[in-house]
């Protein structure tokens, strides 16, 4: 929903007063760069893209404007197909979330991440198991026991989107503890957290940034994080507890791990110089204090990968999603 012309004009005004200290790489954008967000305005990917745009503008990291454009149609399929068909256009990059894998698998649109050129992994988003603070579940064990005791399907899990990350995790939990939830899909993560506060669902697997406000307000309680190790942030958030104090689900007997990619890809057939330019750009973005504050506020996992390492990670993750979604019966017919 981005009016491109005005967008460029405004960004150009902002850029014109900037002394560019842009990279000395062999290639540089000669036109404004479109930054595609395959999700709606206001969501996690959109926030990250706009934060990056703000950082690039504030620190004058690019000579050309960076223009954020949302293409959310078909669970992001619209955005991916747009970049796929812009072969050889180095002025188009896209930020991805897990729908990079889930959307083509669930809907059968003609797209695979290999159609794009991987640039860099910026961060990984964590998932935390949340319950309403009024409920008596203080540990994962209390919670699992309650789920098992309740009639099958009477426990409601709220999440963002259908056949996407939240539901994949839900299915993973079902497998791990051999119980059944009713999964209720909502449009946005903030809405999911509030539904949990209002007791309209029994638990959620919100990202930290989506639920932190309600945790601090004493309305929600985190039980465990779906990562291999606890999160790195030790600043107290609520009741003297920090992100770091949330145990991993695995250590609590709930064997499920899931992290969501927040990575950058560009259009097909990009040259080495062009990839290098964007890698350098994002390295500079990552070094700014604003980026670090943003990482802290969302308790992100700050792993940074580029090149072959990044591609390998994505490939492994694709296989894993295919397996998880196949088991859950989420694949589109014909896949």
């Amino acid at each position, binding site marked *: 929903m981005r009016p491109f012309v005005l967008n460029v004009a405004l960004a150009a005004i902002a850029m014109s007063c900037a002394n560019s200290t842009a990279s000395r790489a062999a290639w540089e954008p000669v036109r404004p760069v479109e930054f595609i967000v395959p999700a709606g305005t206001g969501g996690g990917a959109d926030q990250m893209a706009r934060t990056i745009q703000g950082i690039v503008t504030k620190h004058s990291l690019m000579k050309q404007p960076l223009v954020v454009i949302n293409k959310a149609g078909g669970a992001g399929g619209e955005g991916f197909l747009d970049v796929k068909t812009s072969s050889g256009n180095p002025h188009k990059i896209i930020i991805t979330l897990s729908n990079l894998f889930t959307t083509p698998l669930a809907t059968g649109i003609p797209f695979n991440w290999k159609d794009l050129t991987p640039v860099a992994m910026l961060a990984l988003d964590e998932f935390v198991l949340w319950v309403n603070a009024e409920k008596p579940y203080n540990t994962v064990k209390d919670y699992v026991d309650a789920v098992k005791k309740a009639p099958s*399907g009477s426990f409601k899990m709220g999440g963002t989107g259908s056949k996407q990350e939240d539901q994949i995790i839900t299915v993973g939990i079902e497998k791990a503890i051999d119980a059944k939830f009713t999964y209720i899909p909502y449009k946005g993560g903030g809405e999911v957290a509030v539904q949990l506060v209002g007791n309209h669902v029994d638990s959620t697997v919100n990202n930290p940034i989506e639920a932190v406000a309600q945790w601090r307000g004493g309305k929600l309680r985190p039980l465990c994080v779906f990562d291999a190790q606890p999160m790195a942030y030790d600043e107290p958030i609520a009741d003297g507890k920090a992100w770091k104090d949330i145990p991993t689900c695995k250590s609590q007997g709930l064997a499920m791990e899931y992290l969501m990619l927040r990575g950058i890809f560009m259009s097909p057939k990009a040259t080495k110089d062009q990839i290098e330019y964007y890698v350098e750009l994002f390295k500079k973005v990552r070094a700014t204090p604003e980026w670090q504050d943003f990482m802290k506020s969302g308790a992100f996992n700050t792993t940074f990968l580029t090149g072959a390492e990044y591609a390998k990670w994505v490939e492994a993750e694709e296989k894993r999603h295919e397996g998880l979604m196949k088991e859950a019966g989420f694949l589109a017919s014909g896949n």
Partner: protein
Amino acid sequence: MEELANLFHGFAVALQPYNMMLMIIGITLGVIIGVLPGLGGANGVAILLPLTFSMPPTSAIIMLSCIYWGALFGGAITSILFNIPGEPWSVATTFDGYPMAQQGKPGEALTAAFTSSFVGALFAVIMITLVAPLVAGFALRFGPAEKFAVYFLAFCSFVGLSKEPPFKTIAAMMMGFALAAVGLDSITGQLRLTFGVTELLNGFDFLIAVIGLFGIGEILLTMEEGLAFRGGNATINLRVVLQTWRELPAYWMTSLRSCLIGCWMGVTPAGATPASFMSYGIAKRLARRGNNFGKGEIEGVIAPETAAHAAGTSALLPMLSLGVPGSPTAAVLLGGLLIWGLQPGPMLFVEQKEFVWGLIASMYLGNLAGLIVVLTCVPIFAAILRVPFGIIAPLILVLCAIGAYSVHNSTFDVMLMLVFGVLGYLLKKCNYPLAPLVLAIVLGDKAEEAFRQSLLGSQGSLGVFFSNGLVSTIMALGLVALFWSAIQEGYSRLRTSMV
């Protein structure tokens, strides 16, 4: 009164020259954004968001929220002058605003729209100031079933109160539902009715449909009627503002009712669009001159505009206190809060007093500034109608095309707009009402989503819609609104038979 002390502190923040300047810039930009169809408030705010990165958060939100107010004001201008709603919540304003403009009363219609907008916003801000914590908690009680009940009420108050033949109304509404179903089904994650066409992944965007149905359709009709634009004899001076103001107090009841509907819809948060439709529908039924609605009745402008602004303003309350946006623009502002390092939610009112109350104070001042800006421009806007149709029609067409293109940056949408234009023309010729169709496109998928979420939660039992006092009351109100004509008729028959 700790709130009042905080508020005065907020005024001190908002009245700093730098913030005042941002306020005026924001309002002006917002009006321009609102006037261009397609480029809504959410887009405008999103584009400017990164530019506010280096400002203090309070100044940034003052500017961005003023863009929001400006867009709310601006949306009414094209609705009234050209029958092209720039924003979803301006659709109901066209029903009576455009006929007024055609009768040579664009000045009155614009003044009524702007003034009602201001009244609605003011009412909502006062509510936010005084009862913020109380009201915020109310939104928590709204699960999927309650949300569906609200949409149900919006549809019912529109169908039951419509003066058109009920079958044509229902046919138009069903067409809207069918169009709304295209795209991704958010409950199962499957694509529906896209037939493998990439362009349809996004479904039919409301704005494209509206620009076509109303804007292009209207141009086609005018062409048929002899290329005359009937607003040519508009009086254009500022006196019209004062004259209209003298009339307005007579409609206080409609205003008050619309304010209440708007605040309720904004807080729940169902948004400004159902608020404006519901308020228009109810005003049509209850107003003394309700039979004249749709033919240029000033009350038909007051009701939707008041409710839309009250809802748009109160939508910021759940955003600040709970982190749930009540409107698309509020969703973008919410993203802004996070980027500036502020955590929306229960603690914001405690930890960020200066920010919250600066924002609330800027709501008072921003709306006042907005009202002054747009009212002084009423003669200029009204004068546009004096331009001959031969010149203005191509301009509107270009404006519509740009608007349709800018929604998703896609030329396919421009074609789609033209198709909708022809459809709009045909429907009008056959006397099918457009309003229910539009209402169904806007709210259809949301209502469907809430309905299916409720049934998922209740494991398929319809009892969920009558499972507690709140949801039962709203559903009952909806049913009453749906069968209102029948109830009234039955009552009068009962009385005559008793006599």
